[in-house]
Every structure is written in structure tokens, then in C-alpha cells.
């Protein structure tokens, strides 16, 4: 049987200090899939959780980009553009609320 010496040295990169995205990518997306006694569709979860964060981030980003855009390019800082951004922000916020209020179906096997 192999011993602990299989790893040349302790590896900090995949320990507790590892990038969360790398860990999530592996523990949610990879690894052996075996039906346990309690089943949950991790694909849904992953998409949901990550999407939620992306939407939150994209609202901030849209605002930031909007402000930069107007400052750097006065030719394009029309009220119409601003209204469009506001509508987009509202739409994203609505989407976010939908994500929060719509718990995905959980399949139970018991």
C-alpha cells in the first residue's frame, strides 16, 4: 500500500488557504456521484448560489460602469441611457428577488 510519502511535500495550495472557487469547482462539480439516502440536486444548488452572487455583483458593476461611462464619454451620457441603466438595475434586482423567493425543489429519496 502507498504511504504518506506519495506527496513530495505538504501542499498549501489545496489546503484551507485554497481559493474557494477551486474547492467549490471540485467538491460540487467533480468527484464520485453516488446516490445517498438523502438526495439533493447539486447542479441546481451550484447554479443558484453562484448566480445569486453574480447578480449581486452585476448590479454593483452595472452602476460602476454606468458612472464611468458617463464621466468618460459625455457624448453618451444622455438621460435615455441613464434611464436604460436604471431599468436594467431594476430588472436585475427583480431577478435576484425571484431567486431568493423561489426555493428549488428538493428531491427526497426516503
Amino acid at each position: 500500500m502507498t504511504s504518506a510519502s506519495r506527496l513530495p511535500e505538504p501542499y498549501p495550495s489545496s489546503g484551507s488557504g485554497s481559493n474557494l472557487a477551486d474547492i467549490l469547482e471540485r467538491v460540487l462539480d467533480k468527484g464520485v456521484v453516488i446516490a445517498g439516502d438523502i438526495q439533493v440536486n447539486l447542479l441546481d444548488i451550484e447554479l443558484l448560489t453562484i448566480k445569486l452572487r453574480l447578480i449581486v455583483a452585476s448590479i454593483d458593476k452595472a452602476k460602476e460602469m454606468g458612472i464611468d461611462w458617463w464621466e468618460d464619454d459625455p457624448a453618451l451620457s444622455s438621460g435615455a441611457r441613464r434611464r436604460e441603466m436604471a431599468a436594467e438595475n431594476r430588472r436585475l434586482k427583480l431577478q435576484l428577488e425571484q431567486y431568493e423567493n423561489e426555493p428549488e425543489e428538493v428531491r427526497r429519496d426516503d
Partner: protein
Amino acid sequence: MTELWYVYAVTRADTPPPKDVPGIVGGEVRAVSDGALAAVVSQVPEEDFEGAALHAHLEDFRWLEATARAHQGVVDAAFAAGCALPLRLATVYRDEEGVRRMLHTSAAEFTRALDRLDGRLEWGVKVYLDEEEEAAARKDTTAAEPADGRSYLRARLAQRQTRDDAKTRSRAFSERLHETLRHRSEAQRVLRPQDQQLAAGPGRNVFNAAYLVPADDKAFDAELRGLADSAPGLRVEITGPWPPYSFADA
């Protein structure tokens, strides 16, 4: 309080279970064996892992992070002691008997996978397109006030051109890198690029892959780093060695 059995990984029965590593919610990690195989398990409260509660927890990013890190910590420790097949997050059973049944039912597949992956480890390689360069390209065209519509459009075109060049360059580099590593590894998986919002460093992830390499291939690490340093204006991030997550299910 009722407890469930959380399974982290499957090993051969003669691989010692990891010691001194806390399980999820601090549970004690031990092995449950059946025949030649063992499951690395710890007990977790049913109230956290029962259907609806588990679902709610998984959407709580802080809970998800703590659980994912604990899962990875135990898998890592199991892998340090011998070949270990990582199971996907949140594989739980009602009792020890359920764990044994699972080992028994899939014994042939587990044994095959353990044989295939024994003495191998996984390296993660990601290529990032340098954001500073992209930003610099943007700045060039926006710093000076465009005199008229035509020069504005011309500036925008130049900006797009720079960005396209960078994209082409990063794609060509990634293809070359993958081709080289494909010959240096036993198996490869090209993964979805990670989203920028979840990345720790700067830049946009344009290439993401995992490579399965013999643990005794000591030269691989150095070669990989050499290739990474040769990236023109690109950032290459290397992670690992990991337990063979990306190859456990093949």
C-alpha cells in the same frame, strides 16, 4: 439528536483513516469498511442534512464555504494516507449499514477507479487574460476627448482590435499549453472557465483544465511552472496537487 453518516471518500480498507482532521461541524472522522473497501465518514446532525434544511444550507454561502472546506480537508487527509476517491459534497446515509451497502453495491467500480488512480494526483491549470492590459487599451482611447464622431469610432475600433489581439494570443497560448501538458499527463479534463466574480486574482479566466499525473513524476511541477512563466502577458495559475477529483468519475 439523530445523526446521519456523511461520506467524504472511498479508500482501500487497508488505508489508515485520516487522523487529527476535523469533519464537517467538527465530527470525528473514521472509516467504515466492507470487504476490501472503506468509506471515510463522520456523523453529522440530521437537522442540518435532512432534505429541506440541506437545501437551505447549501444556498447559504457561508455554510457552503465551511462545509466545502471541511469536505476538502478530510479528502486531502485521506489522500495523503493512500489512494482516495473523493465523493461529491453532501453524500449522506441514514446509518452505518447504508454506508456498507453503498460500498458493497459499487465495489467493482470503486476498485477499478482506485486501481486506475493509485499513485496519481491532479494539477489544476488556469490561464488568465491580463486585465491591466485590457484596461490600458481602454484608457488609451478614452483619455483624450474624441474630437468628432469619426475619431471616436476609430478609437473604439482600435480598442476592440487590441482586445481581440489579446484574446487570440491567449487562445493560442492555451492551446499550446494544453497540447504540451496532454503529452505529459495520463488524462486531461478541460473545465469550464471560472467566473471572474469567484476568482481570487486579477484577470479573466480564459482556460481552465485539470491534468492527471503520476505522483512520482517529480519533473512535472517544475516543467509546468516553466511553461507558466513563458506566458506572454498572461497569468497562469497552478493549483494542486489535488486528490484526483476531476478524474474520479470517469
